[in-house]
C-alpha cells in the first residue's frame, strides 16, 4: 500500500492569520450569539458579563473546532480563548476573558490537561486573583490512552471537555454558585473516559507538513488532539474491531455501575464524514449494550477535532439524574443547540 502524504488541501490565506480569520468568520456568522475581541483574541458571549451568574471560560490551541469558540453562548461557555494552531493561548487572553465575563459570582477556568495549557491558565488565574476575581480551575484529563503516572504529564483532556462545558454551563445557567459549578464540572470529568484513533495525519498550516506519516491501512491508536503520535500503530481492522478496542479501553478504566445509564459521544477528528461516524456509533451502541450499559444519551459528530485528521474518538460518561437533566437543559451555541 503506497504511503499517501497529506498535502495542504486547505482553504487558506496567510498561514499566520488562519486563527484570526477563522474567528472573525465564526463571529460574523453568529452576531447575536457572540462577539470577537480581536485585540485580545477572545470570543465573548454577546450578553457578557451577566451579573450574578458564575461564568465559564475555556481555551486551548486552535485546530479543534468547534471547540471552544463554537460552544460560547447560552447554557455553555461565556468566553473562549483560542491560541495559535495546537498551541495553548497566552495568559493575557485568559485574563482578558476572565475580566470580560466576570459577573461577580466567580469564574470557572476549564483547562485541558496539557503542560502548556496548565501553565498559561495558572499564570492568568494568579493575575485574576490580583484583580480580586475568584477563579476555580477545573482540570480535564479523560484520555485513557495515557497512563496517569509519575512518568507522564498525566492524562490528556479530550472529549470530556465538550461534556463538561455543556453540563457545567447548564449548572451556571440555572444559578448554581461557583463551588457547585466547579464540583459538577469535576464530577463530569471524573465519570468520563475517552480513547481516540487516527486514520490519517493532519497538517498544521504554519508547518505545512503532515505532523506524522501514517501509511494507508494502518491506524494510530490512542492519539490526542494535537496530532501527537499515539501509543501504538496497528493494521486498520474493521470498524467493529476498532470499536471493540475503543469500548474496551474506555469501559475497563471507567468501571461504570452495571446497568448504568451512559452518554456515548462518538466524535470525528475533522476529516471523517458523518456516514462513518454513524456506522461507528452503530458498533459502539451495540457493544455498550452488550456490556450491560444503557446509552441513554448520545452525541455523534465532529466536536473536538485535529484539523482535517481522519479518525475518531469515543467518550463515555456515566450519567446520574442531575447530569442527565443538565445535559438536556437548553443550550444555544454555534455548534450545540437544543431546547431554544
Amino acid at each position, binding site marked *: 500500500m503506497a504511503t499517501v502524504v497529506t498535502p495542504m488541501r486547505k482553504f487558506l490565506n496567510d498561514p499566520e492569520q488562519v486563527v484570526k480569520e477563522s474567528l472573525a468568520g465564526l463571529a460574523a456568522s453568529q452576531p447575536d450569539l457572540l462577539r470577537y475581541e480581536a485585540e485580545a483574541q477572545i470570543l465573548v458571549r454577546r450578553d457578557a458579563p451577566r451579573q450574578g451568574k458564575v461564568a465559564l471560560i475555556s481555551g486551548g*490551541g486552535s485546530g479543534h473546532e468547534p471547540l471552544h469558540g463554537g460552544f460560547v453562548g447560552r447554557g455553555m461557555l461565556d468566553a473562549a480563548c483560542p*491560541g*495559535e*494552531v*495546537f*498551541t*495553548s*493561548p*497566552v*495568559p*493575557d487572553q485568559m485574563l482578558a476573558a476572565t475580566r470580560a465575563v466576570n459577573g461577580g459570582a466567580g469564574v470557572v477556568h476549564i483547562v485541558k490537561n*496539557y*503542560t*502548556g495549557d496548565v*501553565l*498559561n491558565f*495558572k*499564570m492568568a488565574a494568579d493575575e485574576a486573583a490580583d484583580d480580586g476575581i475568584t477563579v476555580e480551575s477545573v482540570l480535564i484529563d479523560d484520555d485513557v*490512552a*495515557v*497512563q496517569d503516572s*509519575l*512518568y*507522564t*504529564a498525566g492524562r*490528556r483532556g479530550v472529549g470530556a471537555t465538550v461534556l463538561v462545558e455543556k453540563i457545567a454551563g447548564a449548572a451556571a445557567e440555572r444559578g448554581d454558585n461557583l463551588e457547585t459549578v466547579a464540583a459538577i464540572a469535576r464530577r463530569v470529568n471524573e465519570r468520563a473516559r475517552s480513547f481516540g484513533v487516527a486514520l490519517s495525519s493532519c497538517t*498544521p498550516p*504554519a*508547518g505545512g*507538513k503532515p*505532523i*506524522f506519516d501514517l501509511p494507508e491501512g494502518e491506524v494510530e491508536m490512542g492519539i*490526542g488532539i*494535537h*496530532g*501527537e*503520535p499515539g*501509543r501504538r500503530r496497528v493494521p486498520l481492522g474493521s470498524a467493529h474491531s476498532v470499536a471493540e478496542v475503543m469500548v474496551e479501553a474506555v469501559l475497563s478504566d471507567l468501571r461504570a455501575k452495571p446497568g448504568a445509564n451512559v452518554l456515548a459521544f462518538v466524535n470525528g477528528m475533522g476529516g471523517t464524514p458523518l456516514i462513518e461516524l454513524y456506522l461507528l456509533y452503530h458498533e459502539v451502541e451495540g457493544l455498550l449494550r452488550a456490556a450491560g450499559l444503557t446509552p441513554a444519551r448520545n452525541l455523534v459528530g465532529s466536536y473536538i477535532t485535529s484539523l482535517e485528521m481522519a479518525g475518531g474518538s469515543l467518550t463515555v460518561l456515566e450519567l446520574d439524574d442531575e447530569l442527565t437533566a443538565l445535559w438536556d437543559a437548553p443550550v444555544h451555541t454555534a455548534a450545540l443547540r437544543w431546547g431554544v
Partner: protein
Amino acid sequence: MAIAIAMDAKTITVWMGDVAASVRAEREYLVQLDAAIGDGDHGINLNRGFDAVVRALSADEDSPPGKLLILSGKTLVSSVGGASGPLWGSALRRAGRTLGDAPTFDIAELAAALDAALAAIVDLGAAAPGDKTMVDAFGPAMTALHEAVNRGAPAHEAMRAAAAAAEEGMRATIPMQARKGRASYLGERSIGHQDPGATSTAMIIRALERTLSDSS
C-alpha cells in the same frame, strides 16, 4: 588573553537579537524535532516569541539589563503560549529580578541570574534531570559555568564551557524516555528523539556565549 569587559544592557539586547536570529534560522529543525515527539510547533512558538522580544527591546532605550530581561520574559509569556512560553518567560523574568537595577553585571552575577532562571523553570514545570526536557540542557550548562567561574575563567571562556555542556546535555536527551510535557504521552516511543526544548535551550545559551565572545 582577552580582557573581560563588564556586561550591560547592550549585552541583553545583542543576546536576544542573536537568539531571535538563530531560532528563526533553525525554526524548521525545531518544528521537525517537536513533530516527532510533540505537536510540531516549538520552532514556530519561539520564533514568534523572540521576534516579539526584539521588537519590545527596540522600544526600550535606557533601562538597565535586569529590567530588559524582565521585559523579555514578560514578552515571551505574552506571545509564545505552549509550555515553552511560561517556562522561558518566567526564567528570564526571574533572572532579571536577580540582576536588579544595576547598569552592569559581571560573570558571577550573570551566573547567579541564570541559576535563578533555571530555578524558575523547575519551580513551574517540576521537571527533574533525565525527564527529557530543557532542564537537561540548562542544568549541565550551569554546572559547567560555575566550575569555570570558580577557576577564574574569563566570562566568554566560562560561557563557552556552559554552551558546550548544554549541547552535550541536549544530545543526551536522545536516549531518554520523556516524563514531562507532550512527549511523555508517547511512553517508550519518545526514546531515540532529541528533545526540542533542550535543543532550543542549547541554542539560547550558545547565543549568549557568542554575545560575550564578540564583546570581549
